[in-house]
């Protein structure tokens, strides 16, 4: 009689421990993936920041008097390099994008500039980097969504709090013509 009870108690403890380990490891894995996603965004933001000085130089050669556009881009780049928190990074990212948009609009007005090969190469490089930032954002936001859902839903939420798994913020840019993960819901 008492052995049966002991076996049952033992089995329950084993099951609970197993669940604990699996859930904990699942949360750790998702948190690491989110971390990795954030560094992947950082890498691409850095790549864009590295392109900016050359781009500014190239445009300056033809449009030296467009001071305002240059200053905006340079300031935005400085903000991007200073940013430490995810929110600051996203804000600086948005600022850089709109400033770069302004700079390229200036460049549009100078046909000789657009004929320069080094400039067109820079421009292609920049648009490639923009695509990669967008891809890294999508990955990060997808992972964060999975992580947050898991960490908030029962029964994982029981251990998420005590073990220090808080919700993570999404990487959002303010202005946004950008294509986000599809959310459109159409039923057949």
């Amino acid at each position, binding site marked *: 009689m008492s052995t049966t009870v002991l076996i049952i108690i033992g089995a329950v403890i084993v099951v609970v421990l197993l669940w604990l380990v699996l859930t904990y490891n699942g949360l750790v894995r998702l948190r690491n993936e989110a971390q990795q996603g954030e560094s*992947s965004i950082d890498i691409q933001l850095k790549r864009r920041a590295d392109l900016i000085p050359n781009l500014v130089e190239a445009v300056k050669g033809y449009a030296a008097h467009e001071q305002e556009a240059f200053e905006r881009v340079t300031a935005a780049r400085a903000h991007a390099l200073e940013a430490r928190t995810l929110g600051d990074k996203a804000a600086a990212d948005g600022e850089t994008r709109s400033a770069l948009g302004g700079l390229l609009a200036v460049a549009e007005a100078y046909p000789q500039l657009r004929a320069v090969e080094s400039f067109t190469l820079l421009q292609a490089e920049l648009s490639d980097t923009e695509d990669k930032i967008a891809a890294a954002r999508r990955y990060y936001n997808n992972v964060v969504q999975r992580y947050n859902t898991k960490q908030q839903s029962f029964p994982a939420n029981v251990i998420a709090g005590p073990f220090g798994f808080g919700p993570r913020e999404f990487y959002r840019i303010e202005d946004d013509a950008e294509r*986000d*993960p599809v959310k459109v819901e*159409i039923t057949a």
Partner: protein
Amino acid sequence: MTLQEQIRSARMRTVLVLFLFVVLVALVVAAVYVFFGQGFGLIMALVAVGYGIFAYVAAGSIVASASGARPVSKEEAPELYRTVENAAIAAGLAKTPDIYIIDDAAPNAFAAGRTPEKAYVAATTGILALLDRRELEGVMAHEIAHVRNRDVRLMTLAAVMVGVISMIADMLLWATVFGGGRNSNNQNPIGAIIAIAAIILAPIGGALLQMALSRRREYLADATAAELTGDPEGLARALYKLAVDQHPLQHVNRATAHLWIESPLRDHHGLRSSVGGLFDTHPPLQERIDRLQEMGGFQLPPIPAGGAEA
């Protein structure tokens, strides 16, 4: 269904198919026991496992050489490189897979390599010429989705399992033909009948399950690709163009059919093949386009009957 629902549904159906696979293998093992008893059954099980491991290892090196793919540099194909890099970043892969080109006018693409680290993707010159950038992005995201979802390993395993099942079934058939079933006489006849039925039906069932699994993974890869690019319409447009295209692929065999973006074996006269498509590696293109339309909320014209006007 929305994107997330489609992903969940494809995963659940994968589990179901895998469960049926296990049931099938259990049936075959039971049949072996009925016919040969435990001792010989064990030897056969060892032979089967050995064969399975050999086949799995050997399967790794077949694809690239068999399809005539050659590695390509970033300077040679910058756009292809960019689309693959972007999809790999969006999928969170640790490294961008190696990229190959196949000199073939038929538009197609595939992914191979059992782990994401060893993965590579290939595209034919035909598909590079046919698709615009947005469409190519969708196709390469579909291939990267196969890599991330570990489909190559899954499908290799499925193929090996079907091979093992067929091998055992063949041996059992020989054994019955030459009267080797030493236990079959004194066992109950119902068991023997079930065992014979299992021998005959198991390989067919295995092949059916393998193809069903392949089609599930195609739907899943489509949905994942839409998630990676955030643009289901790009992939849908690409599939539409592939449906209308008429070039047959040159280096093709049945063993690697499940790896391609669309079935290289497709009969170009009918989009929906016979036997209800049960033996197809890929779902009908129209069905795949429909699902992408459902998650993206856009509408393409239906694929013209017969594949194309030309």
